[in-house]
C-alpha cells in the first residue's frame, strides 16, 4: 500500500477510460451517434469517480485501510477532469462554443442547471487540493470547504435523473450509492463524541 508504484498504477487506471475513448475514436467505433456516446461516456465516468471519491473515507474505516487516503485527491481530481471533458463535449458539440447560448441553456433547462452546478462546485475543490492550499486554509476550514463535494454529488445525480426519458434504473443506482455514502457520514458524525470546549 505504501509503494509509489501503486500510486502510478492508480493514475494509469484513471486514464484508462480516456484511453478507451481515444481508441474507439481512432477506430471510428463511437456508435451511430458519436456525440451522444462521448457525452454519456464522460458523464458516466465523472459520476463513477465522484462516487469513488466519496467511498474512500467509509472504505478506510470499514476495511481498516487508512492508507487509502493517499488516493483520494487523485480520484477526486480525475472526477473533475472527466467532468471538464463532459462539459467540453457539451459546449463544443452541442453549443459550438457559443457562451451566450450555453448560459441561456443553464438558466432554462433544469437538468443542465444541475449539471453545471455540479461542475462549478467541484472547481474550488480541485484548485485547493494541493498541500499548499491545505496549509493556507488550515485543516478545519479546508475540510469545511471540501464538504461542497456532497452538494456536487447530489447535483450530479439530479442532473442524470432529469436527463433520462423513462428508464431510471441507472440514475437511481447512483442516487442510492450517493445517499448511502452521505448517510454513512451522518451516522459517523452523530456517533462521534461532541468536541470538548474549554471553559
Amino acid at each position: 500500500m505504501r509503494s509509489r508504484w501503486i500510486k502510478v498504477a492508480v493514475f494509469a487506471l484513471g486514464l484508462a477510460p480516456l484511453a478507451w475513448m481515444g481508441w474507439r475514436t481512432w477506430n471510428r467505433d463511437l456508435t451511430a451517434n458519436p456525440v451522444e456516446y462521448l457525452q454519456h461516456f464522460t458523464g458516466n465516468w465523472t459520476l463513477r469517480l465522484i462516487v469513488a471519491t466519496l467511498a474512500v473515507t467509509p472504505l478506510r474505516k470499514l476495511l481498516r485501510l487508512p492508507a487509502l487516503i493517499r488516493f483520494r485527491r487523485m480520484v477526486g481530481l480525475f472526477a473533475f477532469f472527466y467532468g471538464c471533458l463532459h462539459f467540453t463535449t457539451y459546449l463544443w458539440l452541442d453549443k459550438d462554443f457559443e457562451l451566450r447560448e450555453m448560459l441561456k441553456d443553464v438558466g432554462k433547462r433544469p437538468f443542465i442547471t444541475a449539471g453545471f452546478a455540479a461542475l462549478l462546485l467541484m472547481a474550488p475543490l480541485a484548485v485547493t487540493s494541493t498541500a499548499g492550499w491545505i496549509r493556507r486554509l488550515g485543516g478545519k476550514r479546508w475540510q469545511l470547504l471540501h464538504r461542497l463535494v456532497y452538494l456536487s454529488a447530489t447535483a450530479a445525480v439530479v442532473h442524470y435523473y432529469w436527463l433520462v426519458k423513462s428508464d431510471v434504473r441507472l440514475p437511481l443506482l447512483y442516487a442510492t450509492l450517493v445517499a448511502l455514502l452521505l448517510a454513512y457520514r451522518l451516522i459517523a458524525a452523530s456517533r462521534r463524541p461532541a468536541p470538548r470546549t474549554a471553559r
Partner: protein
Amino acid sequence: MLVKKSSGLRYSDITPRQVYLERRKFLASLPAAFLAGRELLSPSARARAATRFDRLAKSPLSVSDPPSSLKDITHYNNFYEFTTAKEAVADQAAEFRTSPWTVSVEGLVKQPRTFSMDEILKLAPLEERISRHRCVEGWSMVAPWIGYSLSVLLNQAQPTGKARYVAFQSYFDKSQMPHAAYAGIPFPYVEGLRLDEAMHPLAMLCVGLYGESLPPQDGAPLRVVVPWKYGFKGIKSIVKVRLVDEQPPTTWNLANAREYGFYSNVNPAVDHPRWSQATEHRLGEFRRRPTLPFNGYGDRVAALYQGMDLRKNY
C-alpha cells in the same frame, strides 16, 4: 453362432430429431459459445435471412437527403419492449418471431378483417420511399423505407362515417421481451392518428428497409412511418388497427402527458419541457442542424392543422 440381440433403440430415439439434424451447427457453435456468449457474436451471424424485394417502384414522396447507413439505421433504435439501450436493441430483438403474423383491422369499418403478412405484401405495389426520421430526443436519420401508403390498408376495411381516429397496437410478449419490465412505460405500446392524418399519402405502412424485409429492431414485420411527426408516433410490430370515434390513448402520452402530446408534430418552435427541439443531430453528421417545421414536410401536411394552436396541441 452368436447373434447380437437388437436393443430396439435407434439413434433417433436417443437424440431428439431437431438436435440430431442440427448436430454440425451445434458443434460449430461450441467454440463461439465458449469464447463469447451470445453478446459478442456479431448480430449479422445470427440474423435470420431477410426477404429481398425486387422491382420496387421509386416513390415520388421521397426526399433527396442522402440515406443514413444501414448499420446506423439498424443499430440505433428505440424499441423499449426489447431494451432502453439504443445500441443493444439489434441484439436483443435478433430472435424475435415475426412469422406467422397477422394484423386485424377492426372497429368502425364496414369490412373488419384479419390480414396475413402475405396478404399485406400484396395489397399494393411496394415502393421505396426515402423519408426523414426525427426522434423526440433530438437526433435524426434518413431511411429508405419500403411499403405503401397506410390509406391502402384502411380503405380495404372501409371506415364508416363515424370513424374519426385510428388506434394502433403493437405486439407484446413478455417471454420474448424480458427487459420490457424496466422500460418505465406501459405495454402493449399503443399509438394513434386522426383519420385524415392516417389517410394522408405521406403516412406509410412500412414492411421493409434498404431493399429487404424489416429487421426486428426496426419494427418487423410491419410498422407505421409518419415522417412529419416525432419518431415515437411510428408504431412498430403492429398487430391491431382499430377505427374509433374518439382520440385514442397513446403510450408516451400515458407515461408523461406534459412532455408527449397526441399530435407530436416535429416543431422547432415548441421545446420539449426538458430540452430544445430547435436543432437536431443527424446520424453521420458532426454538427447539429436546424430542425424544420413538420420535419420539412410542411408544404404537404401543414393544411391538416389549419386553425389549430400547435403550441397547445403539441
